[in-house]
């Protein structure tokens, strides 16, 4: 039993270290998109009402091509100042955070507010962005 204690402890410590490092990386990537940190707590946990709906992904893709692809690129990998939407920071963001950023934009950084699109369509775009993972 005592022979297993050392390897088990080492495994546990390694797991903790790996998880910690991953979390640190995620925190660092979130720092790349500081706007994510501005999202109010109450909107962060909002659920996407279209989650898991294939039609919402299709509709979101259509909206993405109409409104977003010009800046973020057809492949959503970002262009110039426009963020790579396949990046870990974006993909790790909650649907509520993405919906908040779509609604408010980041005017100082050049991203317009999309509050003129109905909320339903913004959620459909979130569904599409999440499908890029």
């Amino acid at each position, binding site marked *: 039993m005592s022979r297993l204690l050392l390897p088990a402890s080492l495994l546990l410590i390694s797991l903790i270290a790996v998880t910690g490092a991953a979390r640190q990386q995620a925190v660092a990537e979130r720092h790349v998109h500081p706007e994510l940190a501005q999202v109010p707590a109450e909107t962060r946990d909002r659920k996407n009402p279209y989650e898991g709906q294939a*039609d919402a992904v*299709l*509709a*979101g893709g*259509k*909206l993405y091509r*109409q*409104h977003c692809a*010009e800046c973020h690129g057809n492949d959503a990998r970002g262009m110039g100042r426009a963020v790579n939407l396949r990046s870990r920071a974006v993909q790790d963001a909650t649907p509520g955070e993405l919906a908040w950023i779509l*609604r*408010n*934009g*980041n*005017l*100082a*950084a*050049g*991203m*317009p*507010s*999309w*509050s*003129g*699109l*109905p*909320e*339903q*369509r913004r959620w*459909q775009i979130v569904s599409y962005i999440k499908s890029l993972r």
Partner: protein
Amino acid sequence: MRATIRCGLMLAFAAMFIGISLPVAAQESPYFVTYSHHLEQPGNLDVEFNPVIGTQRGGNNYLAGTTEFEYGVRAWWTTEFYLDSQSTFGDSTLFAGFRWENRFRPLMREHWINPVLYVEYENLGGADKAMIEVVGFDNESDFAPRNSELRGETKHELETKLILSSDFKGWNISENFIAEKNLSGEPWEFGYAAGASRPFRLEATPRPCNFCRENFLAGIEFYGGLGTAKNFTTSGTSHYAAPILGWQLPSGVTLRVSPGFGLNQNSHRLVLRWGISYEIAGFGRRLRRLFR
């Protein structure tokens, strides 16, 4: 003035040349007179042609219009250049002047009510009949004289607006308070515009379509004068109610139509507006590349 027209035409051709294959669907509001807080996307150019037919008691009916070039300088700043012209039936056709406006969003986030500050310089002849705002004691009878009498007058005006606008459950509700000053020294004139609009369908359908309900918007706007700084009033000036129908095509073209009905004896009985606009994505970027 000829240089201004030439400049406008060159801009239009440049827009067509550079952007003909780069359509994008914008979040256009369908209003003709009222402004919402939605600005042009940065780097995009929106080219609009908005004609209007007005009935005229005590004079000839007219066809007027504006050609507009709206550019998103920043996500919080939109600039727009207008060329006004008009043709009065049984009279003459003339270029009526130009306007240059700028809209700024002072707050960087969305709120229940979103303010936008608007500043415009107008260099317009007395014969301008585009009527994209009503201020002071603007009256139907102002348009009754013949063009030869009206064209002699040139107005240099500064127009400011406080735009307040909200989005709620698919609706946009906007209110504009207008203050206009003739730079030759006349008192400040005031006016208002307010509108509400909503798409027929809030969700998008999975497939591209031209005729689906999500591409259509309907709304109504009200606008009129509020007198001057010396006599702030709603009487003695004109007021209108105008339902609106808009159709946003995925190709980047937006079509709108709005019959405006005069609400008192000082107003034109009917002001029929329609418009076509085309959004050119990445215009600024492509223009910069030409000069690199």
